[in-house]
Each structure stands twice: as structure tokens, then as C-alpha cells.
């Protein structure tokens, strides 16, 4: 139920390196993976980034946010403009094909810039609205999400309602899985620390947190900024994976889908949330054949998931393989067993 007194991650960098190595390995030796499976893995990784980053805002800090897809949109459009217009204009003599070395080398800074712009959007929505609580905050974030969508729809420079097409296919298994690993590591490392417990203190009791010297507003904005940063990266990866983005792809339903992943995975459980994100991605694919009944079955399965919560159990199962340690003190370690 609860986390350890001593937040120790054994060899944290090793875990991160293993994730990135897996990403590189799949990228280099993954020739046998067919394009469809590749696409599904890309989507799953992107959803992991989205869900785990929303978990920081909703699960750890307890701020109900309905605009995660909007942060994603900001990242997606920013990066599409960068790779589609800015980079070819700045360095016209290089070959921009998405898979060319020039595109691949510049993709990392592009992802970061997309993330930073989304983080800035997170700060804008976070700043004023974090004085609000619960339902009011939900309304403000819902409104922000719609504003972003409508703005994009009415801006002809980015294609308006038609969207942007012909985006370079720069996203590959390495970037997607690599960033999923980086996101998961960052979130776990962040929360499993004295600093990170501040997010949970704010969630549990804001008045008590403030009385203990925690600047609750700063923590809430930090959560929004970090969450939006990774959502922006996910958006950029998405844009360069599907090569076509339109405002409708980042509507309220998209935000809602991410929220479902977070809730199914268990609020405040990054590993469970990541597992839920993967399962829902797969579910979406399996249900494709059902055409018009797809959403009905989808909803039914979500309800069953809610009742039986298999993902939380899966999360705990997978957590065993991650180098996260519970209760490292000898004497207090025993106490923890008795308590749980």
C-alpha cells in the first residue's frame, strides 16, 4: 500500500541505460518486426509517456487535468513546424527525409524544444488556474484544451481544420522506447525522494503541506510543467510517427483516454500506469475489427477493468523486475512487513 521510508532505487542509471539499450537494440536489429507491429509499439510507447506524465499531475499531485492532449498538440505542432519548415529553411542543403542522418541527429533537439514549448503552455495554464481546486480546475483545464484545439483549427499557417500532412517520419523505435524509458525513470526518480514526496503531501493535505513549509503553488506548477514537457515530447513523437496531425486528434476524448490509463493503472503508481497504457493501446488495436461496436466493447472492458483492476496487480507484478527497493533498513524493514 505504501512506499518505503527510505527511497532508494538500486542502480537507477543502470535501469535507465537498460531501457535505452533495449530501444537501440530493437531499432538496430528489429528488421524482422513488420510495419504494423512497429506502429503499435510506437503508439504504446507514446501512450506510456503521456500516461506516466499525466500521472505526475493527477496521481501524485492530485490535480485534475483535462488538457493533457492539448499539451501533446502543442508539442506535435511545434515539432512539425520545426522539422517541416524551420529546419529545411535554416539548413537547406541537407537532405530532410526523416530517416536521413540529418533528420535523425536534429530530432533530439527538436523533441526537447517541442517539450519546452509544451512546458511553457503548462506554466501558462498552471499559473493562474492552480489557485483553483477540484472541479474548478477541471473546468479551466477543459477550457484550455478547447482553446488550443480551436486556435489550431483556425490558424491557416498550420493547415487549420485540415491539419498538417507530410511530416517527416523521424520517429522510430529508438526514440519512442527510449523516451518512454526516460519518462518512466524521471517520474520514479523524482517521486521517490524527499523532494518528490512534496507532490504527494500537496495531494494528501494542502493546508498541512503549506504549514510544513511546502510552497504548494510551486509544487503544483512544477507538476504541470514537467507533465506538459513530457506530453509535448510525446506529441512530437506522435506527429513524426503518423506523419499527419489535425486538431481533432487532440480533442477532449484524447485527454480522456489518457486519464483512463492513469486511473486504470492506479493513481500514483507509475509502473501500473505504464502497463495500463500499453494494455489500452493493444485493446484499441484488437477492437479495430469490431468497427461500429468498437466503442461499446471498449467501454464495457473499461468498466470491467475498473471493477477488477487487473492493471494494478500487473503493476505490482512488473515492479518486482524493476530495481526498486522497499525498506532497506534492517530493523525497520521487518516493521514494514508486519505493518502491511
Amino acid at each position: 500500500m505504501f512506499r518505503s521510508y527510505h527511497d532508494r532505487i538500486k542502480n537507477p542509471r543502470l535501469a535507465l541505460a537498460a531501457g535505452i539499450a533495449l530501444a537501440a537494440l530493437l531499432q538496430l536489429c528489429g528488421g524482422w518486426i513488420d510495419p504494423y507491429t512497429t506502429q503499435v509499439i510506437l503508439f504504446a510507447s507514446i501512450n506510456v509517456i503521456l500516461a506516466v506524465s499525466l500521472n505526475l499531475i493527477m496521481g501524485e499531485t492530485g490535480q485534475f487535468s483535462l488538457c493533457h492532449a492539448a499539451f501533446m498538440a502543442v508539442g506535435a505542432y511545434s515539432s512539425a513546424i520545426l522539422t517541416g519548415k524551420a529546419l529545411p529553411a535554416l539548413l537547406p542543403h541537407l537532405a530532410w527525409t526523416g530517416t536521413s542522418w540529418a533528420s535523425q541527429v536534429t530530432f533530439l533537439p527538436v523533441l526537447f524544444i517541442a517539450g519546452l514549448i509544451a512546458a511553457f503552455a503548462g506554466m501558462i495554464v498552471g499559473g493562474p488556474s492552480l489557485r483553483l481546486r477540484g472541479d474548478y480546475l477541471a473546468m479551466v483545464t477543459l477550457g484550455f484544451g478547447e482553446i488550443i484545439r480551436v486556435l489550431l483549427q483556425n490558424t491557416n499557417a498550420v493547415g487549420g481544420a485540415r491539419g498538417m500532412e507530410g511530416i517527416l517520419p523521424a520517429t522510430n523505435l529508438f526514440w519512442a522506447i527510449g523516451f518512454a524509458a526516460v519518462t518512466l525513470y524521471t517520474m520514479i526518480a523524482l517521486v521517490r525522494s524527499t523532494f518528490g514526496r512534496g507532490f504527494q503531501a500537496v495531494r494528501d493535505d494542502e493546508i498541512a503541506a503549506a504549514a510544513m513549509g511546502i510552497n504548494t503553488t510551486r509544487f503544483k506548477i512544477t507538476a504541470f510543467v514537467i507533465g506538459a514537457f513530457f506530453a509535448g515530447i510525446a506529441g512530437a513523437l506522435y506527429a513524426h510517427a503518423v506523419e499527419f496531425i489535425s486538431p481533432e486528434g487532440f480533442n477532449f476524448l484524447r485527454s480522456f483516454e489518457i486519464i483512463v490509463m492513469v486511473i486504470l493503472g492506479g493513481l500514483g503508481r507509475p509502473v501500473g500506469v505504464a502497463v495500463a497504457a500499453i494494455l489500452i493501446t493493444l485493446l484499441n488495436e484488437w477492437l479495430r475489427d469490431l468497427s461500429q461496436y468498437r466503442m461499446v466493447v471498449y467501454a464495457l472492458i473499461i468498466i470491467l477493468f475498473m471493477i477488477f483492476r487487473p492493471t494494478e496487480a500487473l503493476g505490482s507484478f512488473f515492479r518486482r523486475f524493476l530495481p526498486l527497493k522497499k525498506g532497506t533498513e534492517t530493523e525497520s524493514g521487518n516493521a514494514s512487513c508486519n505493518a502491511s
Partner: protein
Amino acid sequence: MSTKHSLLEVRNCSLRFGGIAALTDVSIKIEAGELLGLIGPNGAGKTSLFNILTGVYRPTEGEILFEGAHVAGLPSHAINTLGMARTFQNIRLFGSLDVGMNVRTSFIARLRNGLFNTVRRGRSFRSEEEEIQEEGRRLLSYFGLEHAALHPSRSLSYGDQRRLEIVRALATKPRLLLLDEPAAGMNPTEKEELKRLIALVRDEFGTAVLLVEHDMKVVMGICERLYVLDQGKVLASGTPAEIRANPKVITAYLGKDHGEVVG
């Protein structure tokens, strides 16, 4: 203003909610290291006074000086950082965190390592976590809670939860500790233990304590000086013996006709 300041000085503070006056023209003074009691019947404004001291409310009128600095209207976290910590009448622990982590949250405002070092988990981060761990353990052991460090805070008994709140407040290294009815819900043995602990807080940490409490045995037993609030006003102040003999206090507590009954 070069003279020595009182630790805390409340000057003519009033707090009104619309037409209702929770506090009227309250002035109190606390010196460093003092053990001060604040008593009064229900609704006298004791918790309201706590709330203006700790930045939950801003006083409608008057000023509050902590070590000579104006603090009225500052946000709670800033007041805590200046050196004033509190506990709550209705216990407010962080329910999803275990006992040790509840204490550790008090160190957040003074962390040397920021976001990036935390995620990087470098050497400076690790040594700071170790220090906090040690310090937290030391504080918990003072209050006999060390064995419970890994227990969920909700699983503690009522008395232990109240003690954990005190430990958590102490971990912010305050020079003034405000305790809001710490003995509520405790049995007589626990109350005796609490008296010992409050004295220990003062003697061991040099922290001044402002204690709101209904249990007269506890208040009279340990406080050096008392303020009595009634209907938002300071009714009397003085040593426990003076207060006990004060007819105005007796009237406020028991009504006019019963004054003689009290010893």
C-alpha cells in the same frame, strides 16, 4: 528598533467574517523559549488566533511580529520557513505517506538539491537523503515512534498520530511551536506522557511553545504563563495560579452563579 524583540508579538489583532467577530483587539506576547498556554471556552477564538498566526487567514486589523518581522498575511509556507510551526486540532497527517515520510516532508523547504539533482541522483543528493533520514529517525526516537517509521501514518493510534504531528512540526526546526489541542482524545497515561514531551521540546530544542488545550490538568501542569480568550477577546493573562483565582475566568467558564464551587 535596535532593542531585543519578543519572539512573537500580536498587536491589536482583529479577525472578522462579515458581521461576526472571531477576534477583537487581541494582543499577546511570547518570549523565546517560553511555555505559554492559551485557554478559553469553545468558540472563544483560540483556533482563529492560530490561523492568523500561521497565515491561514489574514487578520482584518492589527499586526503580527515574529522576531521583529511583520508576518500578518504572509502565506503559510513562508511563515513556517521563518520559524513558526503548528499542529492541527483535527489531525492532518499525509495519509498516503508512511510515518518516516511524513516527517521527511518537513525538510522539503530547506533542501539543497533541486529538481535536476533529484532526478540525477548524484552524490550530493544521496548524502542529503541520508542526513534527512538520520535527522528524521532521531526526532522520531525522541517521541518513541522510531519503530513505526515504515507504518502507514493512518495505522497509528490516535495518540501516536498526535505525537507524529508534533514530530513533523518540530522537523521544520521552529523557534515557536503552536500546538492545537494536542491532548484531545488521549487517555490519562498518554496525557502525562504528552506533558513530559512538551517540556522536552522546550528544554531539548529550546523551542517556545504556545499550547491551546482544554484539559486544565495539562495546561496548568506545564505552562508558565496563560492567556485566557473569551468571545474573541483576551480576558486575562498571568501565571496558572493567578488565572485559577481570577473571578472573570471562572465566570467565563462556568457562568456567574457557580463561581464559588471551583477550587
